[in-house]
């Protein structure tokens, strides 16, 4: 059984991190390969665990050595352990594999960059933290991993911290997610206090032990709703859902492989994973699921629209990620648990591939503006082909992986018969195809719209360290979808599902048909605007005609400006000013007054310390005398009898 070896998954990256910063910091080659070998070991163990789960789905969990009793006092018992079930097995494979590919990719991409070992060290630390989160057995451990990945995200976004934009983006990512993490923490405390006395021997906050308690009536429906919303707040922050989505596009200031690893495949899906992991809580309160679905749909639609108007290649993909994360939340909200998890699974591969492909392009042309690219297909064949596969997959076109997973969600949305949701789903599908292929056509076909800073002949395909991960990911992005064909008896839905039995929904051909047609329409529109061979319409003309819509979309719905004006200037700065005033005038004067009082009193009192032994003797005998007199007057039986 590989389950007893699963501690290796956690320990290997952590050891690599410690070694890199402790021993091999000066040696780039050794450090990088250390990280790669460590994550390869973790990956091997996770794949073994996944196959073991596939053969015999089972829930195993155990304390991680001495950390099994991480904190124990009175009747409180916090534990750090390893949880193996189909969901976590799937997630660890995703995390380890993407981390492995990204680290191999970075060998070339980050070659000669400043802080190379720091970069690898933090990737190892991030991998460890993410795995700690994924393998968590309880809310407590999840929160530790949650904050650790947040820190790693901060450190890696700010890798080029000498660039003000990167430093600001790192800070923004950290602070904005904090708005979600704080309610999440409150939620954990809420859950702890409500269920603490009902754990029945399990560690406090244990997922599996608590999952049976939500529906027992210990907490009212209103309480469950609050609980679910507090937990969901954490997911909203981490998975960049509306209204805390603003940090993710800025996070693209980090190195591109980091965007692939953290801000596409792994960390940002932690929120989705959290909702899936605590699904019994949401399932116990239908209105909380409705909120999840609404937030997810709103995020997804808005991000998909904004993605169409972006000029930066990484920002397009970032909004695409936002949109897909919203879609996963949407799916969870409408009850498509298996499909949402399947989409998480497929999305990891094709989105990592999109980012790494974009990285390859940026590596080749040294710009991120898509209008300065164009026609790269001839010079970067492997990149073009792999990004093409990723685009088909992301747009949800048969038979690539994104199609199969998106289809499951579509089926559930259609089954909900909610017209708003159905419209949203259709819009998401359309815009996904539109922005994805807009990107593809602009970057890889035709000629650059603007003059390139580079001689086109110097542009060439990237090296093997970059192309091999691209090809591996392309194979996965192309074919992994077949593991979850709707209606199959052996598919993903039979492996990861919520409840006692797999969801046995009939194949919804209407949903399949609509989503496929809409996606193809989106592709067609993209071709008509951006593929030179079929171009019929001018995008700039359209943009000019509907300038307001374009500006709104181009500027991400002005959310940054609104937050800046309302929260930062209106709320935060004013609160800070008030707090500053309070601190200076009330706290300080209190403290200063106290200090002055003591100084004054001690200045007088210290004169008692004359240093003259006779004075002390006077005090001593006077004291004895007073005490004796008091004892004689008030004492009972001071005399010998």
């Amino acid at each position, binding site marked *: 059984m590989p389950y007893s070896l699963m501690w290796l998954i956690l320990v290997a990256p952590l050891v690599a991190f410690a070694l890199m910063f402790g021993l091999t910091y000066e040696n780039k080659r050794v450090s990088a390969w250390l990280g790669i070998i460590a994550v390869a070991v973790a990956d091997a163990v996770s794949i073994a665990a996944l196959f073991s789960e596939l053969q015999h789905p089972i829930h195993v969990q155990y304390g991680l050595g001495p950390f099994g009793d991480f904190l124990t006092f009175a009747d409180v018992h916090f534990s750090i352990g390893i949880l193996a079930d189909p969901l976590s097995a799937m997630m660890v494979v995703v995390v380890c594999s993407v981390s492995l590919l990204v680290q191999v990719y970075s060998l070339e991409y980050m070659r000669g960059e400043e802080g190379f070992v720091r970069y690898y060290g933090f990737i190892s630390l991030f991998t460890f933290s993410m795995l700690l989160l994924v393998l968590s057995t309880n809310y407590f451990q999840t929160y530790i991993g949650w904050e650790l990945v947040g820190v790693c995200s901060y450190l890696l976004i700010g890798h080029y911290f000498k660039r003000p934009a990167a430093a600001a983006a790192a800070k923004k990512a950290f602070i904005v997610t904090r708005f979600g993490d704080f309610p999440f923490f409150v939620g954990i405390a809420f859950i702890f206090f409500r269920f603490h006395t009902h754990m029945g021997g399990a560690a406090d906050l244990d997922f599996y032990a608590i999952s049976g308690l939500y529906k027992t009536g210990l907490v009212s429906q209103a309480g469950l709703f609050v609980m679910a919303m507090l937990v969901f707040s954490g997911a909203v922050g981490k998975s960049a859902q509306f209204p805390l989505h603003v940090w993710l596009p800025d996070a693209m200031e980090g190195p591109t492989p980091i965007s692939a690893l953290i801000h596409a495949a792994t960390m940002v899906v932690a929120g989705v994973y959290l909702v899936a992991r605590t699904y019994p809580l949401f399932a116990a309160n239908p209105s909380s699921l409705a909120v999840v679905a609404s937030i997810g749909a709103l995020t997804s639609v808005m991000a998909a629209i904004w993605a169409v108007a972006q000029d930066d290649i990484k920002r397009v993909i970032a909004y695409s990620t936002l949109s897909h994360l919203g879609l996963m939340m949407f799916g969870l909200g409408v009850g498509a648990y298996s499909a949402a998890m399947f989409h998480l699974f497929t999305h990891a591969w094709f989105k990592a591939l999109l980012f790494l492909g974009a990285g390859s392009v940026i590596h080749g042309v040294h710009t991120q503006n898509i209008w300065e690219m164009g026609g790269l297909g001839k010079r970067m064949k492997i990149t073009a082909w792999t990004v093409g596969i990723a685009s088909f997959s992301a747009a949800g076109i048969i038979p690539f992986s994104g199609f199969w997973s998106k289809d499951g969600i579509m089926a559930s949305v259609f089954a909900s018969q909610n017209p708003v949701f159905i419209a949203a789903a259709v819009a998401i599908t359309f815009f996904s195809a539109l922005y994805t292929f807009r990107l593809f056509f602009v970057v890889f076909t035709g000629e650059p719209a603007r003059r390139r800073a580079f001689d086109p002949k110097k542009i060439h395909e990237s090296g093997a360290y970059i192309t091999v991960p691209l090809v591996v990911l392309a194979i996965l992005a192309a074919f992994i979808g077949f593991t979850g064909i709707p209606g199959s008896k052996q598919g993903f839905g039979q492996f990861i599902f919520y409840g006692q039995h797999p969801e046995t929904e009939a194949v919804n051909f209407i949903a399949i048909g609509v989503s496929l047609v809409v996606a193809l329409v989106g592709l067609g529109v993209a071709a008509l605007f951006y593929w030179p061979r079929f171009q019929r319409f001018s995008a700039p003309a359209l943009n000019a005609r509907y300038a307001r819509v374009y500006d709104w979309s181009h500027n991400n719905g002005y959310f940054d400006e609104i937050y800046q004006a309302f929260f930062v200037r209106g709320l935060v700065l004013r609160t800070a000013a008030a707090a500053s005033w309070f601190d200076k005038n009330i706290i300080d004067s209190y403290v200063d007054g106290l200090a002055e009082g003591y100084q004054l009193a001690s200045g007088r009192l210290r004169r008692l310390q004359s240093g003259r032994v006779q004075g002390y003797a006077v005090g001593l*005998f006077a004291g004895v005398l007073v005490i004796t007199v008091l004892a004689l007057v008030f004492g009972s039986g001071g005399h*010998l009898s």
Partner: protein
Amino acid sequence: MSNSVVYSIAFYVLAVVTLTAGVMTVTLRNIVHAALALITTFFFIAWMYLLLNADLLWVAQLLIYAGAIPVLIVFAIMLTRRSMSDTSNPESSSSGWAALIAAGVFAVLVVVLMPAAWPVGHYPDQLKGTTAIIGAELVNRYAVPFEVVSVLLLVGLIGAVVLARREEQD
């Protein structure tokens, strides 16, 4: 005169002389005079021990308190203050408090000690001397304290030598 009257007269004379000498010890402004008054006090206390049938202590008091310790003190006086002036032993600023506290302590002691019902024993009249009894007690019942005190004396001796010795000039 009966024995009791003689005894009473002896006690009162001794008490008055002892206390007077004691008061002089702490009030004389010349330190040498004060030391002489101290010797006088110790001397008469020795006779008071004799009134209490403590012949061994009588001798010990005469030898040690009225003999050895005053010598030490006089040496100390000579080594510290060369003059025998009338200001060699002035009063400090706290003398008012000192008088008050001394009076208070005296009052409290009298109030506590006088009315107390002390255990009463019967002194054997045929006892001619106490030396034999105390000697036997010291080597039997008080053997351990006796040895400890002897070590203490040794420590005191060595300590005094070490403290008072001048630092050797290397």
